[in-house]
């Protein structure tokens, strides 16, 4: 069968499966999908073990990193969290608003095409689950960096409820093939994850009235305040941020690439203290969570960035560098964002005060995802306001960046409603 025909037939099967899916009550869909999440998050479950093995073979992450990353990310992704999310966004029986006076009807599209991207497995899980909650069957194309997670989800669902599992179809094809790509995108709702260039190219193909939900590149940061250095909590904060960096080897949108140290007139010296603490914490965490495979291109980018810092220091700029075999921390002279080679390469920027922080993160704003904040005491809320105003969609404590709640407004969008048709009843 030709790949184009394969995609068309998969969509035809999904249309039939979608009708059956929508015949089920929201409660029933939540029950099945809740069971799916419970199976995936159970470290002792056979499917979970199968998943970890598959990921270790394809993504390049170290096995310990994968296990810890999944444990942390899925810790709160249980059936109760899914029900709470549905209750928040949809309300009972598919009606948003107060139970006794429903005002809006929420429903999924006939089908949703999901173009998966990246090597991180948990965003794939939510990308497949959310349309199904709404009663929209999913046609998915796996990421070339993680070809397994979508299939694991499909298998896990099949083991729980084979009829329900018919609402997922997985097709693999070369996205550079325009004909196949257009066949895949021929859905009323398209979800895509990819580079900014990929998203721009897809946006040109998925025009109105179709729904296009895009997740382009994002970055995360840490922001550390003066209290961190006064209360003896520096080590704990550094360890938290080291965990945020080490999990998924800094390749996720919630991985911090830089830490801004807000510390008044003595910001450079204070940033130095933090850089040393982070360096130590990254050394420590390497034993527990070894870094995975690093492509030659990334190794080259790291080598260049290290040389760059060395040379700027040699030129008299106030830059310091701490490097281990598998990580690099560069304390910069200023707050200007710089190239981030990833794979555990962190820049620490000194910032004088909150106003300077606002200016420093302004260029990152449109690309900001999560921000880990610590050391601001009673000013925490004010600093959180600054980063949220700048564009971040999540603020949390160090060590929690890689544990986004299931209900996180990823890229500032409502996870379910962004994929739904909403009709108002007057």
């Amino acid at each position, binding site marked *: 069968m030709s790949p184009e025909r394969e995609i068309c037939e998969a969509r035809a099967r999904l249309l039939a499966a979608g009708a059956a899916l929508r015949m089920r009550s929201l409660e029933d869909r939540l029950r099945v999908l809740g069971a799916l999440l419970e199976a995936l998050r159970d470290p002792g479950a056979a499917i979970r073990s199968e998943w970890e093995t598959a990921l270790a073979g394809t993504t390049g992450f170290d096995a310990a990193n994968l296990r810890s990353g999944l444990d942390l990310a899925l810790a709160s992704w249980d059936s109760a969290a899914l029900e709470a999310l549905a209750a928040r966004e949809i309300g009972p029986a598919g009606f948003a608003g107060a139970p006794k006076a429903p005002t809006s009807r929420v429903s999924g599209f006939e089908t949703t095409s999901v173009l998966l991207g*990246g090597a991180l497995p948990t965003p794939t899980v939510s990308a497949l689950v959310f349309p199904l909650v709404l009663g929209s069957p999913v046609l998915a194309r796996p990421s070339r*960096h993680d070809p397994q997670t979508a299939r694991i989800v499909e298998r896990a669902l099949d083991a729980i409820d084979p009829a329900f599992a018919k609402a997922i179809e997985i097709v693999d094809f070369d996205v550079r093939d325009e004909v196949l790509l257009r066949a895949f995108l021929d859905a009323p709702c398209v979800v895509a994850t990819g580079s900014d260039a990929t998203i721009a190219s897809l946006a040109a193909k998925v025009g109105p009235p179709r729904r296009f939900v895009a997740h382009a590149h994002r970055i995360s940061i840490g922001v550390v305040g003066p209290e961190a250095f006064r209360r003896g909590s520096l080590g704990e904060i550094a360890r938290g941020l080291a965990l945020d960096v080490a999990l998924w080897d800094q390749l996720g949108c919630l991985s911090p690439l*830089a830490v801004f140290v807000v510390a008044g007139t003595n910001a450079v010296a204070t940033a130095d203290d933090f850089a040393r603490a982070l360096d130590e914490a990254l050394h420590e965490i390497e034993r527990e969570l070894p870094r995975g495979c690093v*492509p030659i*291109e*990334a190794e080259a980018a790291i080598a260049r960035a290290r*040389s760059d810092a060395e040379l700027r220091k040699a030129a*008299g700029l106030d830059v310091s560098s701490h490097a281990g075999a598998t990580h690099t921390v560069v304390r910069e002279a200023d707050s200007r964002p710089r190239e981030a080679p990833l794979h555990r390469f962190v820049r620490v920027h000194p910032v004088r005060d909150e106003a300077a922080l606002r200016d420093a993160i302004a260029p990152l704003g449109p690309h900001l995802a999560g921000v880990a904040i610590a050391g601001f005491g009673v000013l925490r809320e004010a600093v959180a306001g600054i980063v949220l105003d700048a564009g971040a969609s999540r603020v949390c404590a160090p060590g929690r960046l890689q544990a986004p709640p299931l209900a996180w407004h990823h890229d500032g969008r409502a996870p379910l409603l962004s994929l739904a048709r909403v009709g108002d009843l007057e």
Partner: protein
Amino acid sequence: MRPGSDPARARLDAKLLEWMREPASPECWPQDEARFDGLALELFAFQFERIAAYRSFCEGRGRTPRTVTTWREIPAVPTAVLKELSLRSFDAGRIAHVFRTSGTSAAVRGALELDTLELYEASLEPTFRVHVLADLAPGERIEMRILAPSAAAVPDSSLSHMFATLLPRFGTRESGFDLAPDTVDPEALVASLRGAAERGRRVAVCGTAFAFVHLVDSLAARGERIVLAEGSRVMETGGFKGRSREVGRGELHAAIEHCLGVPVSRIVNQYGMTELASQFYDTPLRFPEGPRRKLGPPWARVRVVDPVTGDDAREGEHGMIVVVDLANAGGVCALLPADVGRRVGDGFEVLGRAEGAEARGCSIAADEILGGGA
């Protein structure tokens, strides 16, 4: 010697110019390892002495003129750092010309500061002739169509300056620039090439890859092909980032063959960059029988190294590209561009920018977000 110039530098320039002006032909252009090594070590000692930041950088690595015994050990500086540091062996007052990388803001544009264009121009002429005009008889000229803006329009473009240098040297009187700055007019490009085809003489079409993309897209949209005379050739250079659409090099060459009638075997990619005074070219015109690889002039060498150990990568293995270009006499001769590649016989192949890290995740290098990656 230029008035007021550094005598040590003048001696080095004289040796280099002598080499660059020696007869060169596609068949016989000896690499002369001993000569390269000797001059490279002399130049390193000179640059170590004159450029304080570079000296401190080298000392930090334990590399000094006393410890460095071969050109392979000369510490290389990343080209990206030239966006913010000025590494030159002469006073600012002697800057005669500045070439800048493309970009929207001067703050993020790399630069090559020169006190003289003599070495730069002396290096590029024989290299272009040997690799792009290999089949021309001595003194023979060819119509050159340049798909880039003229040097008068963009005086800080090294590419435009290169073409402006080559045109009077090798071009016929019909030759010319076919692109205005900051815009691509596909109609004008098509009209110009149609004219060249109608004259029925072989032509060298040279320009930026993104200009070729516009050209082939325009021809494809109108269902037109231009068949250039047999013996024509194409030289394209540069990437696509932020320009029109991204196209694989193989795909672009196939489209050029289809639209202009120039076979892929006569299409040459040039590897060059603003921060580098010399250029490297694909070999299909110079060595039609061998594997396609990149070669440069004998005074410029490329190493492909393991980024972690700094050792030479084995043939075929991917590694980080390090360029040692003696024509960069006024700055630092050993540079680390943002490219990875692999060694192919006596040459090398460029595999792409060293930015693959972002491809595996949804995070991204901040440099790209800030638009400084050009």
